[in-house]
């Protein structure tokens, strides 16, 4: 048999074994190529919007190749380890290490570059589709067409070529290090060991560290850590504690919990428990590092995806918080002008006029938490004040006041009490009010609220008194908030066009422009994060699958024995399913849980809605991730069928 025949044979065999690797390679290449194509496409400029967008694209493409590179190196390391025996055999029949390396090189080269070109082709075909998604997300109206980018092609080739060289260097180093003898010694089989006290300590410590990290994360923005420095330290602490805790969790906690469960069984284990518990108990320990990385990657992906989807999902609602109507104007003349324009086009609308004045207020008595770190004076902070007749909270007595429309992020930093004294300071007199509570409605635009502070609603008489005693220095240019609400949804686009065509003397805002701008920014970031998340997902899913292939290889002997004893493949598969539920489920659940706590600690900076977008992201992630679990069960099924 000539060397070429050997190469061809092992290629054929490898393709069958590593189809998922080939698939992952093709997929990541096409992802990368499509991504880089978008990066170089001049048509993308409206979607990228700004220099920042282009920079984000660039940074993401670097991150993408780092993830893919690490994944490919790791996967190849797993494969070459598994082929140790084969390599030893080649050496035994008289091939030098150089020859073996040469053979591996050619084999890998063919597999790798075929996949690379396949990936580029698919990426090219898919880039139109991706462009359409990006346009859709960012709300850009343009037609996507198919162009083959030379630059993207060159960059993809260069980058993946470099990764190939790295892989080959790793394999060379691996072969060089090994002697024939060590190549022949079987991969260490998993053997039972009794629990030691140390394991118990590690187990408890792991769980405790994770919980501690979660606890600190829930306190992160509650005012306990007020300076940036403290905040930064707390974040580092959370990261370290959770990641290290995760490592110990795999190292000890899992086997410890399983051990406790097993103990209660008193030696009476069913075949399912044999196949799942006993194997995971000893294996998870040796996979602790890679599982920790996978969990962290999942947490990162789930967290980032959730946050960016939260901001995208909340664009309309947060625009509603910033602009308290479809259109908000701050001058009566401007409003007349716009209304005339609307009338000309027969667009029906509703108008709400709210008198707004800025008044310095002492809110210190109703603030909760530490106050010494605030970057403004809570004893005298300007707040917009409106009269009870412009709000729907019922009749107020002259010493009563409501607050309304407090931004979620500020609410976290400076939580308010439910009641207390509140002093409004005019130019000369001070009026003491009884604060009755915080309402949810956003009644005036962010132009007045300094980006999120609440509005004070007072009794009509109090409002009049304050108006006489107004401090002109802190007043805004406009003193009235005119909200225009378009009655017919279908005409909003038209109205917005009219709004943009007009020239206004004083500040004026359109909710639709706000939504459009936000969609552009958040759509782009969601697109990029989605790309990265998908890569994380696929690479970590593949690595788990490859690990399971190896595990299956090691356990083949057991399947043969059990089948001889009379267990049917279905009996064994029942156990395997449960085992995979743990093998894939534990990293997934832990990753999602980490992601959840990360999101929970700071989601309010990103949007107004937590649960729907987060659960959607988590559900989708879990579903895609489970595919790898199912594939691995299929792999086991084949091997178990063959075992007897």
């Amino acid at each position: 048999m000539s060397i070429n025949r050997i190469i061809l044979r092992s290629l054929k065999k490898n393709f069958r074994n590593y189809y998922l690797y080939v698939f992952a390679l093709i997929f990541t290449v096409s992802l990368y190529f499509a991504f880089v194509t978008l990066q170089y496409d001049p048509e993308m400029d409206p979607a990228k919007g700004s220099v920042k967008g282009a920079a984000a694209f660039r940074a993401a493409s670097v991150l993408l190749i780092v993830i893919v590179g690490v994944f490919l190196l790791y996967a190849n390391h797993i494969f070459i380890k598994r082929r140790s025996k084969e390599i030893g055999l080649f050496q035994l029949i008289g091939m030098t290490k150089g020859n073996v390396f040469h053979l591996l090189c050619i084999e890998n080269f063919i597999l790798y570059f075929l996949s690379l070109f396949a990936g580029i082709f698919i990426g090219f075909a898919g880039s139109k589709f991706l462009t359409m998604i990006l346009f859709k997300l960012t709300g850009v109206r343009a037609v996507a067409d198919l162009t083959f980018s030379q630059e993207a092609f060159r960059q993809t080739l260069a980058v993946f070529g470099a990764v190939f060289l790295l892989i080959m260097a790793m394999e060379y180093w691996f072969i060089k290090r090994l002697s024939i003898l060590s190549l022949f010694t079987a991969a260490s089989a998993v053997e039972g060991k009794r629990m030691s006290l140390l394991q118990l300590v590690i187990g408890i410590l792991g769980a405790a560290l994770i919980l501690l990290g979660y606890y600190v994360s829930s306190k992160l923005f509650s005012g306990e850590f007020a300076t940036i420095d403290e905040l930064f330290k707390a974040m580092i602490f959370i990261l370290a504690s959770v990641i290290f805790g995760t490592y110990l969790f795999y190292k000890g906690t899992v086997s410890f919990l399983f051990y406790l469960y097993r103990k209660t069984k008193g030696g009476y284990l069913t075949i399912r428990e044999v196949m799942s518990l006993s194997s995971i108990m000893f294996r998870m320990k040796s996979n602790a590092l890679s599982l920790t990385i996978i969990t962290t990657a999942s947490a990162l992906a789930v967290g980032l995806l959730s946050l960016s989807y939260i901001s995208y999902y909340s664009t309309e609602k947060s625009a509603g918080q910033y602009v308290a109507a479809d259109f908000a104007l701050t001058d009566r003349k401007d409003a007349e002008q716009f209304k005339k324009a609307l009338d000309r086009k027969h667009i029906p609308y509703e108008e709400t006029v709210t008198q707004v004045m800025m008044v310095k207020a002492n809110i210190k008595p109703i603030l909760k938490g530490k106050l010494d770190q605030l970057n403004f004076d809570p004893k005298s902070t300007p707040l917009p004040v409106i009269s009870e007749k412009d709000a729907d909270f019922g009749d107020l007595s002259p010493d009563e006041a409501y607050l309304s429309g407090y931004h979620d992020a500020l609410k976290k930093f400076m939580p308010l009490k439910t009641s207390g004294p509140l002093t409004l300071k005019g130019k000369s007199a001070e009026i003491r009010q009884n604060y009755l509570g915080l309402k949810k409605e956003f009644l005036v635009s962010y132009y007045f609220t300094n980006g999120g502070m609440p509005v004070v609603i007072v009794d009509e008489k109090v409002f009049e008194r304050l108006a006489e005693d107004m401090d002109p220095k802190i007043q805004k240019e406009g003193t009235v908030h005119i909200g225009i609400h378009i009655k017919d949804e279908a005409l909003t686009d038209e109205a917005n066009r009219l709004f943009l065509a007009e020239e206004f003397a004083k500040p004026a805002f359109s909710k639709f422009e706000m939504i459009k701008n936000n969609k552009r920014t958040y759509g782009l970031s969601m697109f990029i994060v989605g790309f990265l998340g998908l890569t994380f997902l696929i690479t970590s899913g593949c690595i788990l699958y490859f690990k399971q292939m190896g595990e299956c290889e090691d356990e083949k002997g057991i399947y043969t024995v059990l089948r001889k004893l009379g267990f049917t493949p279905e009996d064994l598969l029942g156990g395997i399913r449960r085992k995979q539920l743990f093998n894939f489920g534990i990293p997934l659940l832990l990753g999602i849980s980490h992601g959840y706590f990360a999101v929970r600690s700071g989601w309010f900076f990103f949007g107004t809605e937590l649960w729907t977008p987060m659960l959607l992201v988590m559900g989708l992630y879990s579903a895609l991730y489970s595919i790898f679990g199912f594939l691995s069960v299929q792999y086991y099924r084949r091997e178990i069928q063959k075992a007897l």
Partner: protein
Amino acid sequence: MYILEAKKIYKSYGNKFNRQEVLKGLDIQVRKGEFLSIMGPSGSGKTTLLNVLSSIDRANGGTITIGGRDIVGMKEKELAEFRKRHLGFIFQEYHLLDTLTVKENILLPLTITKTPKREAEERFRELAAELGIFELRDKYPNEISGGEKQRTSAARAFIHNPSVIFADEPTGALDSKSASDLLNKLQELNRKRNATIVMVTHDPVAASFSERVIFIKDGQIYTQLVKGNETRQSFLKDIMKTQGVLGGVQYEH
């Protein structure tokens, strides 16, 4: 009444053009409670015979009935079911599961029959005490000796009171002391529990512990020896003599 009865078993490997006949029309009957050995030179087909009798491998022709049930016509699933309930196995390489303790290994066959936990515990206690491995119950296979492993494997074969126990070279990997220990235990269990044992071996000493020895050569029965009222020593001499005539590998003991 025979517990195991095989008639005209044929077994061949390979394809149309290159066929290797391993078993050529063998007949075997085993009585209930009998301890039978199957001997023969390397390549005579004794392990194949055991595999076919124990339904791990399928015969190409002939009938095999165990406890009155024909196993040749059974489907794969039925066979597996039959194996787990009615047959016990002892292998040369022990084949214990490394991730299970001694006790968990032994109790494995009982979990299928849904034996109540209390009864399982009782059976385990009794059998493990008889085999002298009760003290080892919480150890893992890599912590005990070869002899202990094989006794564990024997306990696993006996625990569910199977109709027939098949042993494939059970002493093959053991030193002579552990081997005779194990064989004494097997003999004891055979007598006490009236368990039927079919053992393949190439070791005349091992065979001398049984009541009857069948010699096969080139896929057919060559002859058989019955111990009857002989002592083990003289039975051993007979076995070795027959083996010499058979022309297999000679052993000196």
